[in-house]
Every structure is written in structure tokens, then in C-alpha cells.
């Protein structure tokens, strides 16, 4: 079937079978490889993207379910050379080791801060618990999310 994906503000007209997995459409067809495969069962969060602002596991999302909606991947988060506050916070807190979970972590954090701008530590842990960092950088990631929450939202219109 033909469908239109709206990814990072750009329209992509694609010929797909409706049960195709969003993660692989993004990665293999659109070369948006920021969303990662980690488990294929929605357990690790490495494939997280935003759909209409909500954090979604793209490895468990059929492409047809994302058609016509606003999809944001890690590649679409910065505005030109200006990093999104959450990206900036991850760099400043050095909240990464191998970095493979980082795109999913950042997008989950963006979604969290979107509906809970000043999360408590407990809220961060509860919300982010579906994202695995096998390198164990959890403390730093919590610090980065807290840090990002202190940035003024007006400084960066995330557009998600």
C-alpha cells in the first residue's frame, strides 16, 4: 500500500506492506538510523521515537499506524546546529558510555518533560524504566533529565 510518513517535518511517500515495522522503515528505507534495534520486543527502548509527541517503541509499531502522524526521530530533534535542551543536557552531564541507548533515552526524556516539565526523581525513574542502558549510566541520565528540566522551555521550541 502507498502511505505518507511525516518524519522530522518531511513527507515521505512510500510503498509498503501495512504490517512492516516502523523501525525498519525508518532505518532501512529512510536511512534514519538513530532509532536502534535492541530487542525487537519493546523491552529496551533503544528504538524509541516520538509519534505526535508521545514516546513509542518503533520496533512494535506497524508503519500503517504511524501514517499521517508527526514522527520525530533523534535526527530531527536539534534545530540546525542548536541542540535540543535534552541533547545538550546529555552532553553536559556526559550521560552516555557506548551511546547506543542514547537516542531512545533522549526521546523518552523529551516526552516525559513535555507532559511533566519538572519531574521528581521518582517520576523520572518510573517513566524511564522501560529504557535500558546496559552500560549502567542511569545516575547520569537522571541528572541529565533534571538538568534539561531547568532549561527554559522558551529557549527551544522542540516542535514535537
Amino acid at each position, binding site marked *: 500500500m502507498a502511505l505518507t510518513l511525516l518524519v522530522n517535518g518531511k513527507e515521505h511517500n512510500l510503498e509498503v506492506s501495512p504490517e512492516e515495522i516502523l523501525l525498519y522503515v525508518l532505518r532501512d528505507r529512510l536511512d534514519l538510523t538513530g532509532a536502534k534495534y535492541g530487542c525487537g520486543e519493546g523491552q529496551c527502548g533503544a528504538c524509541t521515537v516520538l509519534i505526535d509527541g508521545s514516546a513509542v517503541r518503533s520496533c512494535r509499531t506497524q508503519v500503517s499506524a504511524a501514517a499521517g502522524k508527526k514522527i520525530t526521530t533523534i535526527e530531527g530533534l536539534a534545530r540546525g546546529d542548536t541542540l535540543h535542551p535534552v541533547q545538550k543536557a546529555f552532553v553536559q552531564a556526559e550521560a552516555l558510555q557506548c551511546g*547506543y541507548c542514547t*537516542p531512545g533515552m533522549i526521546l523518552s526524556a523529551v516526552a516525559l518533560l513535555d507532559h511533566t516539565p519538572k519531574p521528581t526523581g521518582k517520576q523520572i525513574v518510573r517513566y524511564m524504566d522501560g529504557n535500558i542502558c546496559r552500560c549502567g549510566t542511569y545516575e547520569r541520565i*537522571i541528572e541529565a533529565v533534571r538538568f534539561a528540566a531547568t532549561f527554559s522551555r522558551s529557549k527551544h521550541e522542540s516542535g514535537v
Partner: protein
Amino acid sequence: MKAASDPELQQHQRILRLHRFDLGRRDFFKVLGGGLVVCVASGRLAAQESGDGGRRQVSETLDSWLHIGETGQVTVFTGKVEVGQNIRTSLAQQVSEELRVPVSTITMVMGDTDLTPYDMGTFGSRSTPQMGTQLRKVAASARAVLTQMAAERWHTDEANLLAAEGTIRDPKSRRVISYADLTRGQKLTKVVFNDPPETSADKWKVAGTSTPKKNAQDFVTGAHKYVSDLSVPGMLFGKVVRPNAFHANLASCDGSQAEKMPGVTVVRDGDFVGVAAEDRGTAERAAAAVRAQWNAPAQPSESELFDYLKTHEQKEKDPDDEIIKGSVEEARVWAAKTLQQTYTVAYIAHVPLEPRAAVAEWKGSKLTVWTGTQRPFGVRSELAQAFHISEDDIRVIMPDTGSAYGGKHTGEAAVEAARLAKTAGKPVKLTWTREEEFTWAYFRPAGVIEVRSGVKDGTLAFWEFDNYNSGPSGMSTPYEVANQRVAFHPSDAPLRQGSYRSLAAAANHFARESHMDELAHELKMDPLEFRMKNLKDERLRAVFQAAADKFGWAKAKNSPSQGFGIAGGIEKGGRVATVAEVSISRGEVKVVRVAEAFDCGAVVNPQGLRNQIAGAVVQGLGGALFEAIHFENGRILNPHLAEYRVPRFSDAPQIDVVLVDRKDQPSMGAGETPLVGIAPAVANAIFNASGIRLRSMPLLARGLPSKAT
């Protein structure tokens, strides 16, 4: 070759062939443009060279080198790889320190078998003590060469000049010349055979600081390409048809249905079956359409694991696997109290978040493979053997990978992708699924450790320690005991096993430090006091004290719902002590706080080091509390993250790190040692609260038992 004589490495590194570098210096300048190349020959090779009548085969004898280009850009070549341990940054810092250039001007070319010197691999915490030292040496040599060049140009003495910020300066005449200007228009190669004077750690300005991670921005924007993100023109997607059990033979195979699918290639070679197709979906459908029948032998199951390991001891032993001091037999007679316990550790998986992946491309008889591995040169050897071609025709490139933790020493995906690509006649990308990674990679060895000990007057009288299968790393005790026998007994293991972050040191520390705690309890002594009474190593004593002070050990009061445990040891030249606090509520155990003191010599990058320590604590908690591979008759029963629990945000305790920065000591690797204390510290804390002694890792495999055993 110190590493090659390490028994644990011999056990796990089956391919230990040295290969000589063969990129001529002209190639260097072709790749990088003009400038200055400075190489350092290792001691052994330098000795050979110096007896060579001045005829120096530059291309074949070098261990490390760097290039200073005509724009002042510095390119450093090392066979080490970045797996998240931040070595790209910390090595660049050390070059920056000695070469006196900003870190930002340094490019690290790592883990590319065509461009970098041979390197056995990135494991065993060797990158910092060995490669760091080597690169400091090459950078210091380069600085000396540049100083000499400036001195010649200005007709002055080198002693009058100093190097700073990528320039040579003459403070008296106020002349300044940049490295770029010095090397412009040149194609100079300087080989340095002697050891240049290095900057001592107490004078470090760049090394020893929290230099930000070099390419952090690429990771937060998704720009960094892991192997699984790569594509090359015309690339196909591969999929391997896996056997239904380990050690299975392919009885029959019908690939005709798969071959009918458009653009599908089916490859059968021995017991290997795989497909390649133009897209991932077709490759998956084609692999599913292959009808393969497998014959698998009966194999041991998890239920019999520990008996199996003890009864299948290998006959051939390494003499280094046994340490004997004094007489255990005599001490057994005079010891006031004796204790005997058995500890076990389960098989666990590394679970790198990026499973094995490779892109393979043949051009005629030449093969290029991009793959995530800790041993690019080892994978090149594997490929040479698999395809019966010369290593000279193979290039293995390792982009910074989605981690490894000791789990990516081998090149399975590389060999498989290359095999598919060979028949398909096009490049092939193969990415393992999580289930494949859980099943067809290798595991941290399971093991049984028996400890017998005796004490008198609060000191160790004798110590017997027998490790079956988990490995010899970290098995010798740091405590003072005149009469001891410590032995490693390799077994015919039921599962494919190999290296893992900290190797067997985690298991050996679990057994030793649990047992020390049990002895302290028997003696009604404070666990820290008992350790200190039996410990002379000043550096280990210092980290024990530092961890205890940070935690507030002296004031910690246990209760049935709150317990405190301590553990520590010496490993890979580092000293670590860990204090853990657990809370227990309705049988639920949670590790709430950890204080860890770590001495790895002179600290190169405190920020990166803290990340490694916290990461090691969290990863160690998984193996300590709940990670275990379940298996039956050659099949893995829990090859998914839903069934194999790894630590998450909610499992991570507060971690208070104390860096004991010993600027008077050489820098040691830090990726592994911080992991070894966590399991025994937690086990000891659980005992402290509940009186329940848990002697099997993972401790909470079946939850907290209701009464003491």
C-alpha cells in the same frame, strides 16, 4: 608478551597470532598528505633493530605512531577500539598532554586493520596501562622531534625551546613556529627507539582532567554510525538459518522455496545455512522458508550444571593454575576454627545493547568487513582461516560499537556476512537479533568455588580455594596467609563460554569476600576490622578505609530491614572496596546505596572514570542479583529481555564514588575492577540484615529464602 602468558587469556583467546604491520610509509602520506610521521618501536623490536646495522624496515617493526599534518591536525593510530569505555578520549588526552596540542586537534584512528598497528585486542584492562603509556611515549618523541626541527631552523639549542599549544617557542627571542609550519611540505618519518622523558602525572595539565567525551555530539544527534547503521551501495540483507540446538548437524536442507523468492540467494556450506535478499523482510521470509532438519546430540542441562562442572574437570592443566604456600595440612591441625563452604556462579550473558553485526564486501579476492568487535585483528585471522585467504587480503574496520563487556572477542557475524556476500556477489549486512545474541554468542563461565579456611586469634591460619571452570582471574587472595593452596580447575563446559567484564574476578571475589565475611561472623569481629587485621597491602587498606569512611561504616546499624556489607580486592593492578546497603521489605531486597573507593593509579579522566565505576557497579548488580542463563539440552530457555532481567533505572542504587588518585603510581585500566566487589558486598549486606547467607550468584534467583541455610 605478558598478555599471552596470562592463563585466563590463553583460555579465552584462542587466536594469538602476531601479525606484522605492512603499511609502508609512502602509503601513510598517500592517505594523510604530507607532514611528519613519528613512530615508536617497542623495546623488543628496538633491540632487534639496533643490531641491524642501520638498515631499518620501518614498515614492519612499529607498535604505534602518529602523524602531524600540514594543517597541524594530529592523527593517532591505535589498534584499540572504543566500546563505550571512553578510551578514545582518554588516549587522546594522553597524546595531547605529551605533544602539547589541544585535544580538539587530535583524531584517533582506531581498530582498522589496514591503518592501525597490530593489536591483540581491547580487553583485560590493558588499554590504559599499555596503549596509554605507548602513546605518551610516541607523543613525547614527536615533541622532541619537532623541537629539534625548530632548533635546526633557528640555529639554536633545543634546550632553549619549549613546546606549547601546538607550537615550538623560543622564550628568549620570542620566536614561535607552529607544528603545521614546521612540517609543511615535508614527508618525514622519524623512528624513535629510545624512551623519551615523559611528563610525570603530578605535572599533567590535560591528562588527569575531565576532558569531555570526544564525539559526544554525534551520539546525542544520532549521527554516529554503528555497524548495524552502515550501508554500502548494492548491499543485501543477510539472515542465518539457525540450528535447533548447540552442536547440531545439518541432516537435510531444502532451500527451493526460498530460492523462488525474488532476489534471494540461499547459501549452504557444511552446517551453515543462510540467505541474502534485497531487503530485511524478504531475507526473514526466505530464511523461514528454508526447510532444515538438524540432528543435535543430548547435552547437559542447567539442573545438573554444578555437578557436571566438578565431574568434568579437564586433565591438562596449566602449572600456573595452582598456587601453594606453606603447609595447609599442618595449619589445619593448629587452627582454632575452620570453615568450609561452596559458592556457585551461573552462566550469564553480556547483553550488549547492539547485538553482533557486520557488513561484508568482496572486491575480487579482497574482503572488507565492518564489524563490532574487541579484536579486529583476531577477526581478520578468523576470516583468513574461514575463507583460506591471506590476511593481507582482508581489512576489518571497527566503528565505535554498541558495547561489548568482553562479549565481542569473536567474529561470528563477520564470518557469516562474508560467507553470504561471497555467494551473493554483493555486499551483505547481517545484524543478529537479540535472541541470536543470547543464544549464539558466548557466556560468562559458570563455576563452582570451594573454600576451606582456618583462623586463629583473628588471623588466617590457612586458605584453600578451588575454582571449577569460572576462571583463574583474581583467584589469589590479597590477605596475608602463610599456608595456602589456590587452584583453578578448567572443566569441559556445557555451554560456549568466554571473556566477560572482569573475567573470573567477579566470581572469585564473590567467593573470597563472602567467605571472609563468614569468618568475621564466626569470630564475632567487625567485617572491616577482620579484613584489616589480615591485610598488609597499603593501597588496598587505603581504599577499604576510604569506602568505609564515605559510607559511614562505623555508624551503620543493621536491622532486619536494613543491612550493610563490605568487600574489596586487588585486580588488574587496581584496588577496589565496595560498601553496599540493602533494604529488605516483605522478602523484597533492594540495593539502595553503594559507596565504592577505587585506586587505579594516576587518574587520566575523572569524569570518564566515574562513569566506568558507576557502570560497573550497575552491571555487577545484574549478575549479583538476578541475571542467569537458563538452558536445557543444548537450548537456551530465556533468550529474550523479557525473560532475562538486566538492571534498569529502578534497580540502580545511589552510588558514591571515591577516586583515590595515586599520581605516584602508573595508570591502570578501570573498566573491569570496579565490578568485582559489588556481589559479595550485597551478599554480605543481605546476611547482615536477615541472617541469611546466600552463596549462589545470582543471589535472588529464587527470591530471598525464608530462613537461614
